[in-house]
């Protein structure tokens, strides 16, 4: 556990920024595992490039979180020296890759949510967060092209590919509800104009998703009661294993720098 003693002026904002950063980092780690294993070299490049963008976004957000905390923690400290119970990523980002179809479903859902969220964050009253969002949103738009293009191809493809992405969509959908289950901290940040309204983000997400699912000949699953709260550090069993990989080099060689 990190020993933070100094009071943080804006703990809510720092926590919110860490949630965004952790989701980007954890998803980047998952996508990177496709390198050398993708169905084709173009998909190796696609997953690697999206992972690289996510890593870049995570770095900007961690640097900001460190400044907000004011305790001297760096990007590396946040990524390598925190435990599972400190990570605040959305649970879906940590779920295993499954087959390529499942990775694409996970990516498309997360891309559409992040696009809607970051487009609105460009209007945040927090100037730094708005600037980071303006930079990230250009990259996320490009990610949506990739993941939604693949989702349509697989959904409207062969019987086998359709069946696989339909199953993945049913498996992953329960993890969507966490994004739109607003907590008191998010509500307070929305009232300050720092974070967009969770309800508005949900409407935007559904509006973007509907035509993609239609083209992919897929049906939106029905909502179930949410069970996971990665954003409150209540994770699935998968995050610990992911972090063991992600942090292994730094734990074997403390303070290692590239």
């Amino acid at each position, binding site marked *: 556990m990190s020993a933070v003693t100094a009071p943080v002026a804006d703990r809510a904002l720092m926590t919110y920024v860490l949630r965004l950063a952790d989701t980007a980092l954890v998803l980047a780690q998952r996508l990177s595992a496709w390198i050398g294993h993708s169905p084709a070299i173009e998909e190796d490049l696609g997953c690697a*490039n999206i992972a690289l963008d996510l890593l870049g976004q995570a770095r900007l957000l961690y640097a900001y979180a460190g400044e907000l905390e004011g305790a001297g923690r760096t990007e590396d400290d946040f990524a390598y020296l925190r435990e599972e119970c400190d990570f605040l990523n959305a649970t879906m980002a940590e779920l295993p890759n499954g087959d390529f179809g499942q990775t694409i479903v996970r990516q498309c859902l997360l891309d559409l949510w992040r696009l809607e969220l970051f487009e609105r964050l460009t209007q945040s009253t927090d100037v730094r967060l708005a600037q980071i969002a303006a930079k990230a949103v250009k990259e996320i738009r490009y990610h949506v092209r990739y993941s939604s293009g693949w989702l349509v191809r697989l959904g409207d493809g062969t019987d086998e590919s359709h069946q696989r992405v339909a199953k993945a969509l049913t498996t992953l959908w329960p993890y969507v509800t966490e994004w739109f289950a607003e907590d008191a901290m998010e509500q307070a940040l929305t009232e300050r104009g720092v974070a967009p309204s969770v309800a508005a983000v949900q409407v935007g997400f559904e509006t973007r998703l509907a035509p993609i699912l239609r083209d992919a000949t897929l049906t939106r699953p029905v909502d179930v009661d949410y069970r996971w709260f990665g954003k409150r550090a209540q994770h699935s069993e998968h995050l610990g294993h992911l972090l063991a990989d992600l942090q292994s080099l730094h734990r074997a060689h403390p303070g290692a720098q590239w």
Partner: protein
Amino acid sequence: MTAAVSPEASAVWAVLRAVPDPEIPVLSLWDLGVIREVSVQGRDVVVGITPTYTGCPATAVIKSDVAEALQQAGYMAQVHDVLSPPWSSAWITPEGCEKLRAYGIAPPEFPVGRVAALLGEEVTPACPRCASRQTELLSEFGSTPCKALHRCCACQEPFDRFKCI
């Protein structure tokens, strides 16, 4: 850019214009549009650089190349990041676009007219070798974060294209 520039600032700009991009050396950093601020106080120079993509591994190299070039020219250089406004491939200079084409990379092209741009229309890139517009996308992502891979249906050659962001 049309404002009068002091002689000492011009000398600094001359140094900066000669620093090549580490991954596409035919392009200078000036051509790429990543140099956003330059202030000169005697021999002290402060340069603001904006990354093309947040995760682009070349960003660190670009910053150290700029600092080194200025130090070799006898300046004390400080290089920092500029986050806002975010870089756009529309900032690549016209000369830079020509250099890219000659190098075999299709430069970014944006739809003409606001309506087309608002509708998110895309310009089909012209083959940098034979100029044919009969080209197709092979991969949304290429060998660096800033490029996509296309193919010319006329001359059959694959080519890189600068992504339009």
